[in-house]
């Protein structure tokens, strides 16, 4: 599998996700390290996966992800996504995906109005996707969040459609898997932490699976996501 990590000015988790992907491809002995694509480079080589990393693209100065969504490279990402190339946006990447219209809804300021960096528990809502095939449905995993604007909202009808189509990927939960408001770090509607597009080829999530994909860092619950992607796309 060949993946591309898009680097916007202000991206700061680009290397982290590159490492997680490279380690996953090395474990499967398939494909090489991901290529890093600069935001001004709309003409990058054919890849099987595109990742929009976390960070503060363009300083998040207008609205998180709003300016990145207008960059030359995003026109190409949208074109490829519409042709079925899998795309994953983590944190700021999720915000960019909603701003670019590849995912429904929006991410607004955390309910407590503060930046939040801590481990959270996520309930995996489906194993029926490219991204979550290595998890069990209903499984609880622990990965960190680190964001100021991760409070997911969408219109009621949109939300019902997403539920019906199984577009919810991850929800914030208590360690035993129950969905409580205490377990919801940012006020997201229905404890939503990550969603798919209709075809489940695009995933956006606020938590950072790449930050707990290595036992040396205190956990590896994020690792199956990368392993599963490499396996599915190789």
């Amino acid at each position, binding site marked *: 599998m060949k993946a591309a990590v898009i680097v916007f000015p*202000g991206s*700061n988790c680009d290397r982290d996700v590159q490492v997680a992907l490279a380690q996953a491809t090395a474990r499967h002995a398939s494909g090489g390290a991901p290529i890093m694509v600069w935001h001004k480079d709309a003409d990058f080589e054919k890849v099987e996966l595109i990742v929009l990393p976390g960070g*503060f693209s363009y*300083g998040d100065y207008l609205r998180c992800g709003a300016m990145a969504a207008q960059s030359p490279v995003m026109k190409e990402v949208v074109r490829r996504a519409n042709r079925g190339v899998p795309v994953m946006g983590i944190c700021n990447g999720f915000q960019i995906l909603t701003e670019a219209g590849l995912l429904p809804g929006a991410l607004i300021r955390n309910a407590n109005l*503060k*930046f939040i960096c801590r481990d959270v528990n996520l309930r995996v809502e489906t194993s029926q996707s490219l991204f979550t095939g290595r998890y069990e449905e209903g499984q609880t995993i622990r990965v960190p969040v680190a964001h100021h604007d991760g409070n997911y909202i969408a219109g009621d009808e949109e939300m019902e459609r997403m539920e019906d189509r199984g577009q919810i990927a991850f929800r914030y939960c208590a360690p035993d898997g129950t969905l409580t408001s205490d377990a919801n770090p940012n006020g997201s509607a229905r404890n939503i932490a990550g969603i798919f597009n209709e075809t489940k080829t695009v995933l956006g999530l606020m938590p*950072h699976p790449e*930050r707990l994909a290595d036992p040396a860092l205190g956990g590896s619950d994020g690792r199956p996501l990368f392993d599963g992607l490499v396996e599915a796309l190789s």
Partner: protein
Amino acid sequence: MSEVTPEVIAEHGLSGEEYERILGILGRAPNLLELGIFSVMWSEHCSYKSSKVWLKTLPTTAPWVIHGPGENAGVVDIGEGLAAIFKMESHNHPSFIEPYQGAATGVGGILRDVFTMGARPVANLNALRFGDPSHPKTRHLLAGVVEGIGGYGNCVGVPTVGGEVNFDAGYNGNILVNAMTVGIARQDRIFTSQASGIGNPVVYVGSKTGRDGIHGATMASAEFGEGAEEKRPTVQVGDPFTEKLLIEACLELMATDAIVAIQDMGAAGLTSSSFEMASKGGLGVELDLDCVPCREDGMTPYEMMLSESQERMVIVLKPGREDLAQGIFEKWDLDFAIIGHLTGSGRMILKMHGETVGDLPIDPLAQAAPEYRRPYEDMPEAPFLAPSAVPAPADTSAALLQLLACPDLCSRRWVWDQYDHMVMADTVGRPGGDAAVVRIHGTKRALAITTDCTPRYCQAAPRTGGAQAVAEAWRNLTAVGARPLAVTDNLNFGNPERPEVMGQFVGCIQGIGEACRALDFPVVSGNVSLYNETNGKAIPPTPAIGAVGLIETLDRTATIALKAPGEDIVLIGATEGHLGASLYLREVAGRREGAPPPVDLAAERRNGDFVRGLIQGGQITACHDLSDGGLAVALAEMALAGKLGATLTPPEDPGLPPLHAWLFGEDQARYLIAAASADLVLEAARAAGVPAAKVGTTGGDALTLPGGAPIYLNDLRSAHENWLPVYMGESLGN
């Protein structure tokens, strides 16, 4: 340009004697621009005029030190061709006036000091001191400073992994914000500010110059009086997004062979950066101010030279490399301008609109700055306070709960939750341990990093307090299994023109020097912040110590968390039960008096080397240094981190101090460790001549102290976790 009158000279913070010196150097009266340049270059902040003679007494060398003080940051060898580059710096005055921007730009400035030398920043820490929690400004200042540190560090993508927060009424009018950055560089790619090559182009990169922060260095060199907030216009505004681009662009340029010398524009902006570069190279410099990228029209030479606009660097390039460099900075959408060249004249010539607007000799200004041996009074050390003179609590468990919930000991989770402490995916030891542990990217080795200082000790006995700050930093690094390498010091004191303040400064420096020598722990960088006082009241002496150690293999580290039930708990080090200047005395007995615990550097070293050996040998399962609150507090923290109870039992020893002094005394050179069996540890300790005793066992869901009822971990956790969020007005449970 306006006249240089005695009032203008005084406004620039220059004494009559200093002005006479300027006249002597120039052989004429300075114009306003030149006066402004002298003013910032000779400010306490830039020239260290009151502290220099004492700083020279600190040990600064060791076989592993590559660059000691004098560069932008200290550089130490960490093996495999790599170097750790680090420094701590204050941003106290701006943070009191405008907490968000003051703290944010403090982070930005220290980051630049580190990446200027070729290092990729890998960790930020901060040492913060606020006023009494009941003071009306404390909440506002704490909220703003924490948000500012997070706002900047989170955006640049460098993890904020540790630090300290204290509260004391002594900081009511003058908080302390000390920021530390650690970076990693290849040893063969370390850059300095020493210019060379007459004719080489001088290049300006980064943000444009605005009118912000003019005379920040001068402000930082004076006391506050009434109306300090009116100085808000001298506080700079940070742009972490531009800083992130600047880091990437500089590191990209540093990978080429284009750079001769590079220097960030910090305090005193373009003035001090260009002066320093030329001065270190024994050269002159000519700048064409028409070429300086400006944010607004009509800026005067005075404003351009003294602006402290952020995110700017000066680079001397090799001839012919201008296009290469310009291409890199344009790729990152940053300003790039050739603003001058090096000359052999030894002078700084400033031109604008074809006219010379300033002409100053460099050496007398940069290197012949005033140096004062200020009079000082030896500060008397507070008398020893016998443990028996301090009342025992009715209930030790209640006393422990009170201590764990007090502002100086409660959990700092509310703070570190707002800092991205995991970006870069190398944070192995997160906030809340003895030292942060950050993996060296792509290896199985790591750096351990900490900041420490106990101002109430420094106040009671400056020399002991200075030594204790170093010893505690050394101990915190040791407690995670690291070999301590070197120190950066951030010396925060009041007005040095007052002999008692100077006495505190001298005492602390002497203590730091003794401890650094005894522990082979040299000072490689630092910063002095004086005039920290408001309306004539000085802050408690606060020599914050930042320190870095090396962990050779991540398989051999320790954390504070208890790991398994049924293990033995062993206390390493001697306990005499020192309660003088302790938190127990202050919080539970309501008294502030007595000498701090003595610092026995030989014992410190012996006990620490022993504990490090146990960790590296894989013989223990948890380790925690003992400090504020003593043994009982340390064990409570270990239990909370491990979500596992423990029972504490004093050893049968006729020499044991009174129970409350044993539990809460703050004797130094001590560690608490957990091991499957105490026997091997005790035997090894006997062989090494290290005091050690089994003091308890792990297990259950409560902490049991002698003289008190068991405390369930949930109650312990509530006491420890709730104070700060409740104080900051948050609802609990999230």
